[in-house]
């Protein structure tokens, strides 16, 4: 047995009681979708300033530019929406990458798009363009992710297998990380370096509606690419030969998933910085509820990722800690022990 095999989940985990038949799956998706919506709305109600949300909503509907309306529209709404969009992107991409690589330890950035997106944003920041033009930061991130996807596809080519994809992803992540450090190293002013480091930690604080409008279309295209791979990911469960013999074109599938994750995760990282573990944990928690079927995991994992991220962001604001914990720090603090337990469980099953 190879190390790769050892990482595969061979047996059902504890939650396998809930058998998700067709109706069960639909119910699960609807419940999680509604829960995601509820968390997004709940996120509007949480914040440091006291805010009468219905009043603020009424004001903004009537076009009154009152302070509550401004807080709601300019601060709370983009934060809640981005929490939802970014969480969904991380969850669905995590599930897609785990399905493609057939490995429960894969995370959304495994092929290098998160690292490259962070680098792109940091360069936009460092070069000073971001100070002149506020959308330069997320745009830089998106460009970074897309360049990484093109580089990855050039490296991996049409015929290469899973292992090459992982190695190329590691190479891209490492190189992007080195360049990010180089930028920090060359930063003339410690304040700018500090700001970059804080941005890299990942946060939803002080985001704006234009950022939402910038990433929303990119994310939607990414989601469509990822969600439409469901049947191919199911077929891949039985290996690449079987998947091909069932009529799926694997090089097209790889291209589709690389492009989809670059768009979804690239734009997520571009607006929020790196937020770890959500894309790893969400699919893992939900997998038993869809009977471990990788295709059905995609959508519910997106909902789950959004719920987790919104929940973490709400907790970050409620915790009596100042300065506020960065969202990426919080998710890693919760996520890393989860990863330990996952590894421990996989080791027992191996």
């Amino acid at each position, binding site marked *: 047995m190879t190390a790769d095999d050892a990482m*595969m*989940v*061979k*047996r*059902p985990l504890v939650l*396998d009681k809930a*058998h998700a038949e*067709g109706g069960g799956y639909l119910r699960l998706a609807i419940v999680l979708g509604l829960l995601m919506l509820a968390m997004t709305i709940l996120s509007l109600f949480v914040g440091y300033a006291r805010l009468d949300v219905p009043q603020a909503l009424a004001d903004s509907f009537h076009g009154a530019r009152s302070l509550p309306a401004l807080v709601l529209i300019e601060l709370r709404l983009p934060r809640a929406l981005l929490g939802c969009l970014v969480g969904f992107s991380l969850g669905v991409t995590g599930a897609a990458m785990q399905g493609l690589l*057939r490995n429960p330890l894969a995370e959304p950035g495994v092929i290098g798009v998160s690292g490259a997106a962070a680098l792109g944003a940091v360069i936009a920041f460092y070069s000073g363009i971001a100070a002149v033009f506020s959308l330069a930061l997320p745009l830089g991130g998106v460009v970074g992710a897309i360049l990484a996807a093109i580089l990855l596809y050039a490296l991996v080519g049409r015929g290469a297998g899973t292992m090459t994809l992982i190695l190329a992803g590691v190479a891209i992540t490492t190189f992007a990380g080195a360049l990010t450090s180089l930028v920090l190293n060359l930063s003339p002013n410690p304040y700018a370096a500090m700001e970059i480091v804080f941005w890299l930690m990942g946060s939803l604080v002080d985001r704006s509606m234009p950022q939402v409008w910038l990433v929303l279309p990119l994310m939607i295209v990414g989601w469509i690419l990822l969600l*439409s791979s469901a*049947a191919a990911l*199911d*077929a*891949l*469960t*039985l*290996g690449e*030969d*079987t998947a*091909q*013999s*069932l*009529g*799926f*074109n694997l090089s097209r599938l790889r291209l589709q998933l690389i492009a989809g994750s670059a768009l979804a995760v690239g734009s997520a990282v571009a607006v929020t910085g790196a937020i770890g573990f959500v894309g790893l944990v969400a699919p893992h928690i939900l*997998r038993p509820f869809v*009977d*471990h*079927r*990788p295709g059905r995991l995609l959508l519910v994992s997106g909902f789950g990722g959004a719920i987790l991220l919104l929940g973490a962001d709400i907790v970050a604001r409620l915790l009596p800690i100042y300065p506020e914990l960065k969202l990426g720090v919080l998710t890693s603090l919760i996520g890393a022990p989860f990863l330990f337990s996952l590894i421990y469980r996989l080791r027992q099953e191996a």
Partner: protein
Amino acid sequence: MRIETRGLGAQLGGATVLEDVRLDLRPGEMVGLIGPNGAGKSTLLRVVAGLVAPSAGSLRYDGKTLNEIGRAGLARQLSFLPQDGEAHWPLRVDHVVALGRLPHRRPFAGMSAHDHEAVERALVAAEVAHLRRRTVGTLSGGERMRALIARALAVEAETLLADEPVSALDPLHQLRIMRLLTSTARDGACVVAVLHDLTLAARFCDRLVLLSAGRVLLDGPPSKLSDGLIEEAYGVAALRGEHCGQPFVLPWSPLSG
């Protein structure tokens, strides 16, 4: 579907694995693909399944090339069972078998009533209906192979290519799976199985294709599998016998040398 190869060659990593292979596959026939390790049996199966591009010669499905018929079109007519079939996630048996219906399904559509019936037929034929709610990881080797065969049967394709379907199994499961494959052929499909056991091959197959060093040494009924051919291909001397009118072939001793 009739599959024809003429002058077929294949290369793996620059080495020639198949050379000048002529093969005709017709519905209703049980074909045993035999030969020593490295003779090119798996490669031939993978070339015919459209998984490896041939380096020479022609490959036609009802007179059409793979490009003309399309990968998705071929998937509805040809089902492939790889050698080390394994499920990478702990899927339930019925979900694994349902994967065989993927070539027939429209994008984003669920399983039709016809799909459900096909899955049910496959589960029953492979005798795994009682295991349907078990996850594949919890099955024994023989049960898992039957579940994977059920997956391949669920495609309800006219051609079934199976790479060493019985090699890892105990005698009882070997016999059961050979019976299952022959009955699939009797129902009108063309079944090609890579086999190492010459007795099983001679007994259950209508036709044997013996490969050695990438070339076809024999393509004919099992009665044509002579001692000379076995010695030439495998380098062993074989014992022969007959029981109730059925021949058996036992590799007995390595040729001295």
